[in-house]
C-alpha cells in the first residue's frame, strides 16, 4: 500500500480499494427487495393524507366548505390554511438584497399556482382520504394569471407578491474587464436568444413523508424522501415552533433526488403539524400527477447572449441578459435566484474571456416554483453559449472543435480566475477535448458525414467541453454569489471488535456512498470494505451535515472521512506499537492485521489492537481517551471538474426523428474513488440530458395550466432513446482538496443537451437559428429543416 502519494491537502490512502471497480455494497438489499423507501414504512394506527389542490393558477379563496368531507367514511380531520399551526416557509438563502416571498404551507387567502395545496384530509386509508378530498368545496374568485416571462413583465400585469411592487424578485448586474473595448475591437458580434425548456427531475420515487409524534415527550420522528435531513429538521422546528432537539429526521432509502428533494416542502410541514395535532402517525405519498405539478420545476430561462469575436474566431467579450421563469414563490433553501445566477456565473466556462457583463432578472409567474435540478443554472447557460458557438463556427467557416480549442483556457494558465471570480484550481481542458475528438473518431466521422450526405443521410456532431463547479463548500459558495457556511462532518469509529462504523452528513439517494466511503476508509484503516458499516441520513445517528447536493458528497464527505480515519489510524498504530514494541512509523495495516513492515510474523489482529485500546489501560498513554473515534469537519476550497462530450446523431428528415448514434464522454474529476460509480453518474446524467434535448418539456397553456402531468405527456427517455455512452477518464487531482478529489455528479446534464442539440442542428444543415426551440421534438426538427 502506498500512502500520501496523491497530491492535495490531506491524504487519501490508495491501497486495495480506492480507484477500483468495487461492486456496490448496497445492491443486494435492493435486488432482493429488502430496500425500504418511505412508502414502504408503516406504523400502528397510521393515518393517511390527501391534499386538496388549487385548480386555478391565480385566484382569491372566498371560502372553503369541508363539512361533507369531514363527514365522509374514515375521515379523521380536514385542515385548511386558517387552522394550520405553522409559519410560512421562506427561503433561507443568505443574500443581502434578496426579498422573501413567504409561502404558506396551505394557502388561505389566495392561490398563486394551479397545484398549490389549500387543504389536507386525514383518513384511515389513502383511498378514503383521496375520496374525501374531492368533497372539499373551495370557492375561488379567479384572477388573471401570468403564464410566462413576457406576461409577467408586461405593463399592468397582475402582481403576485404585492410587497415586491412588480413580478421582479431581484435583478443583479456584474461587469468584469473592458467590455466596451472588447465589443469595439471585434470584427463580428454574434447574438442569440435561447429559451431553455422547463424540466422536472422526475425521480422514479415521488416525494413522501411519514411523521410519528409521541405525546408524552413531544418527540417527533420524520421519515422523508429528502436529500437534506438536517435542514428538514431545522426548517420544521422553525415553522412549527417545535423544539429542535425533539425532532429526528430520517431519509430512509431514497429513490433518486437530483436536486428537488433538497427543499422542505409545504406537504412535509402539513403532515408534521397533523401528526402533532392528532398524536398519531400520519403519512403522505405523492402521486405522479402531483409530482409533476408540485415537485419543484427547473431550468427554464430566457438567455440573450452576445459574443464579440475577432475574425479568426477568438472571443473577446460577452454580454448576457438572463430572465428566469421562477414560478410562484422563491423556494426555501434554493431560491428563484440560483437558476439565473449560476447560469451567469459560469457563462465564460472554460474559455478565456475576461470581458463579460451581465444582468439577471428573476421573474415570478403563476407556475410551480422553480428550484434545483442537477446542474442548476449551468445547463441553461452552457446550452445558450455552446449553441451560439456553433453558429459562430458556421458563420466564420471554422471547424467547431477548432473554434473551441482556440478559445480554451490553456494548461499553462491554470490556476485561472474567471471573469466572474471562479477560481479554477486545475484541469485538463485541451487534453479532454483532444481525447474526446480522438475517442469519437471526429475526423473519420466528418468523412462519414460527407458520404452520408451524398446518400441522403443526415448525420451530425456536437462537441461540448465543460468545466463543472463542484464540492459546494463555503469558498465556492462565495465565488458563486451565495456566501454561506457549507461544510460537512464525518465520524469514523473502530469498535472493540476491530470493525468500522462511519457516519456522515451526506446521505445517499442512490449514488453509492456506502461503497465509495467504505473504499476510502477501507484503505485508510487497512480493512475490507464489508467490515465498514456506513450510517447516513438520520439526524440521530449521523453528525450534523447539510446533506447531498451540488456534487459535494465525495469531496466534502470523503474529505471529512479521510481526515477522521487518519486520526483513528494514528491512534491504532500508536497502541499497536506499544503492544508490538515497535515504532508506529514501522507499522502497516492490511486485511485487518497490524504488522511490522518487513516482519509479517510480528503482527496483531486489528480486533486485538482495538480491544486493547478500549480495555487495557497499559497500552494507553497518560490522559488518552480509550475511544477509537474521530469526528472531523471539512469545508473544502473550490475545485472544478472538467471534461468533454461528443454526440453523433442521425436525423430522419421524413419523420423528424433523431437517433443518437454514439455518445463519447471524457471526464476528469481528479482522484477517482470508484470508476464504475463515476461512469454510472455520467451515463445517468447524460440520459437526463437526452431527455432535456429531445423529449422533456413541462408545457403550460396560456392560462398557466400545466398540461403535461403524466409520463405519457412528460416523456422520460427509455432504453431505446439513450445510446451506448463510452466514458474515458483523465485524472487531474485537485491541488486544493483532501486527496485531490473533485465532485462529478452534474456534468452529464450540464453539458450533454448542448452536444445533442448541436449535433441535431449540424445534421439538419442550413436552418434559421432563431427558430430553434427546445426540446427538439420531431415536429420542430421538421420545421427547422423546412420540411413542414
Amino acid at each position, binding site marked *: 500500500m502506498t500512502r500520501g502519494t496523491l497530491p492535495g491537502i490531506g491524504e487519501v490512502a490508495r491501497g486495495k480499494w480506492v480507484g477500483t471497480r468495487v461492486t456496490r455494497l448496497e445492491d443486494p438489499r435492493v435486488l432482493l427487495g429488502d*430496500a425500504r423507501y418511505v412508502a414502504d414504512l408503516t406504523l400502528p394506527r397510521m393515518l393517511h393524507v390527501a391534499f386538496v389542490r388549487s385548480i386555478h393558477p391565480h385566484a382569491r379563496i372566498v371560502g372553503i366548505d369541508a363539512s361533507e368531507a369531514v363527514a365522509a367514511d374514515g375521515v379523521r380531520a380536514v385542515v385548511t390554511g386558517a387552522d394550520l399551526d405553522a409559519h410560512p416557509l421562506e427561503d433561507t438563502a443568505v443574500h443581502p438584497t434578496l426579498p422573501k416571498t413567504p409561502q404558506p404551507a396551505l394557502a388561505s387567502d389566495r392561490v398563486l399556482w394551479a397545484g398549490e395545496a389549500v387543504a389536507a384530509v386525514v383518513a384511515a386509508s389513502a383511498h378514503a382520504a383521496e375520496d374525501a378530498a374531492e368533497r372539499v368545496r373551495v370557492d375561488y374568485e379567479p384572477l388573471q394569471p401570468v403564464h410566462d416571462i413576457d406576461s409577467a413583465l408586461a405593463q399592468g400585469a397582475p402582481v403576485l407578491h404585492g410587497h415586491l411592487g412588480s413580478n421582479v424578485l431581484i435583478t443583479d448586474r456584474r461587469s468584469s474587464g473592458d467590455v466596451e473595448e472588447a465589443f469595439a475591437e471585434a470584427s463580428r458580434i454574434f447574438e442569440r436568444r435561447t429559451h431553455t425548456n422547463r424540466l422536472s427531475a422526475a425521480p*422514479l420515487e*415521488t416525494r413522501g413523508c411519514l411523521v410519528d409524534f409521541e405525546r408524552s415527550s413531544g418527540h417527533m420522528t420524520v421519515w422523508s424522501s429528502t436529500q437534506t435531513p438536517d435542514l428538514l429538521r431545522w426548517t420544521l422546528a422553525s415553522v412549527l415552533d417545535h423544539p429542535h432537539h425533539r425532532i429526528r429526521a430520517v431519509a430512509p432509502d*431514497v429513490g*433518486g433526488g437530483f436536486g428537488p428533494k433538497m427543499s422542505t416542502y409545504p406537504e412535509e410541514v402539513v403532515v408534521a403539524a397533523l401528526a402533532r395535532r392528532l398524536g398519531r402517525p400520519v403519512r403522505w405519498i405523492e402521486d405522479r400527477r402531483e409530482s409533476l405539478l408540485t415537485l419543484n420545476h427547473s431550468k427554464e430561462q430566457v438567455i440573450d447572449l452576445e459574443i464579440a469575436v475577432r475574425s479568426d474566431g477568438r472571443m473577446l467579450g460577452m454580454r448576457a441578459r438572463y430572465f428566469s421563469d421562477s414560478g410562484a414563490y422563491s423556494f426555501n433553501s434554493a431560491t428563484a435566484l440560483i437558476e439565473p445566477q449560476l447560469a451567469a456565473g459560469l457563462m465564460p466556462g472554460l474559455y478565456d474571456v475576461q470581458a463579460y457583463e451581465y444582468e439577471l432578472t428573476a421573474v415570478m409567474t403563476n407556475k410551480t416554483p422553480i428550484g434545483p435540478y442537477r446542474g442548476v443554472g449551468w445547463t441553461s447557460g452552457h446550452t445558450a453559449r455552446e449553441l451560439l458557438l456553433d453558429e459562430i463556427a458556421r458563420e466564420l467557416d471554422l471547424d467547431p472543435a477548432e473554434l473551441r480549442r482556440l478559445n480554451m483556457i490553456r494548461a499553462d494558465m491554470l490556476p485561472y480566475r474567471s471573469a466572474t471570480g471562479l477560481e479554477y484550481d486545475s484541469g485538463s481542458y485541451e487534453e479532454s477535448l483532444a481525447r474526446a475528438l480522438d475517442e469519437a473518431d471526429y475526423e473519420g466521422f466528418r468523412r462519414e458525414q460527407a458520404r452520408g450526405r451524398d446518400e441522403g443521410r443526415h448525420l451530425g456532431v456536437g462537441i461540448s467541453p465543460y468545466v463543472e463547479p463542484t464540492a459546494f463548500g463555503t469558498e465556492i459558495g462565495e465565488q458563486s454569489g451565495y456566501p454561506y457556511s457549507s461544510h460537512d462532518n464525518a465520524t469514523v469509529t473502530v469498535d472493540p471488535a476491530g470493525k468500522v462504523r462511519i457516519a456522515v452528513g451526506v446521505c445517499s439517494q*442512490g449514488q453509492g456512498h456506502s461503497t465509495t466511503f467504505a473504499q476510502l476508509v477501507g484503505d485508510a484503516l487497512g480493512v475490507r470494505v464489508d467490515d465498514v458499516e456506513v450510517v447516513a441520513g438520520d439526524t440521530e445517528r449521523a453528525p450534523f451535515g447539510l446533506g447531498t447536493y451540488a456534487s459535494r458528497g465525495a469531496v466534502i464527505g470523503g474529505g471529512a472521512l479521510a481526515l477522521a480515519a487518519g486520526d483513528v489510524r494514528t491512534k491504532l498504530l500508536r497502541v499497536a506499537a506499544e503492544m508490538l514494541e515497535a515504532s508506529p512509523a514501522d507499522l502497516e495495516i492490511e486485511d485487518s492485521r497490524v504488522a511490522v513492515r518487513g516482519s509479517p510474523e510480528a503482527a496483531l489482529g486489528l480486533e486485538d489492537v482495538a480491544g486493547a485500546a478500549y480495555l487495557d489501560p497499559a497500552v494507553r498513554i497518560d490522559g488518552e481517551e480509550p475511544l477509537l473515534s474521530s469526528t472531523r469537519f471539512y469545508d473544502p476550497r473550490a475545485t472544478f471538474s472538467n471534461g468533454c462530450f461528443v454526440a453523433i446523431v442521425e436525423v430522419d428528415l421524413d419523420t423528424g426523428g433523431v437517433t443518437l448514434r454514439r455518445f463519447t464522454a471524457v471526464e476528469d474529476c481528479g482522484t477517482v474513488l470508484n470508476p464504475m460509480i463515476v461512469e*454510472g453518474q455520467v451515463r445517468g446524467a*447524460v440520459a437526463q440530458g437526452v431527455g432535456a434535448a429531445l423529449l422533456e418539456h413541462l408545457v403550460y397553456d396560456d392560462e398557466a395550466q400545466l398540461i403535461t402531468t403524466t409520463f405519457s405527456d412528460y416523456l422520460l427517455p*427509455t432504453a431505446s432513446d439513450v445510446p451506448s455512452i463510452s466514458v474515458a477518464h483523465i485524472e487531474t487531482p485537485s491541488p486544493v482538496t483532501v486527496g485531490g478529489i473533485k465532485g462529478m455528479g452534474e456534468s452529464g446534464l450540464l453539458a450533454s443537451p448542448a452536444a445533442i442539440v448541436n449535433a441535431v442542428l449540424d445534421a439538419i444543415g442550413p436552418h434559421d437559428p432563431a427558430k430553434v426551440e427546445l426540446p427538439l421534438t420531431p415536429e420542430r426538427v421538421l420545421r427547422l429543416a423546412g420540411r413542414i
Partner: protein
Amino acid sequence: MKTIPVAFAVNGEPVEVSVEPRKTLADTLREDLGLVGTKLGCEHGACGACNVLLDGHAVRSCLLLGVQAEGAAIETVEGLGRDGELTRLQRAFRDHHALQCGFCTPGFLISVTEYLRDVDAPSEEEIREALSGNLCRCTGYQGIVEAVSSLLGEEEAP
C-alpha cells in the same frame, strides 16, 4: 366499502385476501400482503416499476385489480432470490452496475426474467426495445443492457 375474497398464489405460497373491488393488484400486494418490494412509480402504466409476473408474464400491477388475480400465480421481486442469495440475474445487475437508487429495479428484474426466458439471440437494439417498457432515471440504462447481454445464450435459468 364492500370487500371481495380473492385467492391466488404469490411466490409459490397460496394466499387469501379480501379486498375492495377497486383496489389495484399493486396495492393488494403492498398493503394486504406486505410485499412492498413492488414499487409504484406512476400508477398509470408508464414506468413499469410495479411489474410482477402473472402466470409467467410481466404485467403492470398498477393497471390490474386485486380481484383479477383470482386463481393466478404471481411472482414478485421477493420471490426471485433464494434464501437471501442473489440469483444469476441479480448478480449480473450488481456486476454491471445496473442500479443506482433501486426504485425501478424490481420492475426491471421482473421484465428481464420474462424476456430472458423467451428470447434467443437479440441485438443490442432489440434488448433496448425490450427494456423500453420500464423507466430508469439514474443509470442511463447501459448497465441494465449489459447485464441482460451477459446472460444471453446461457443454459441455466437466470
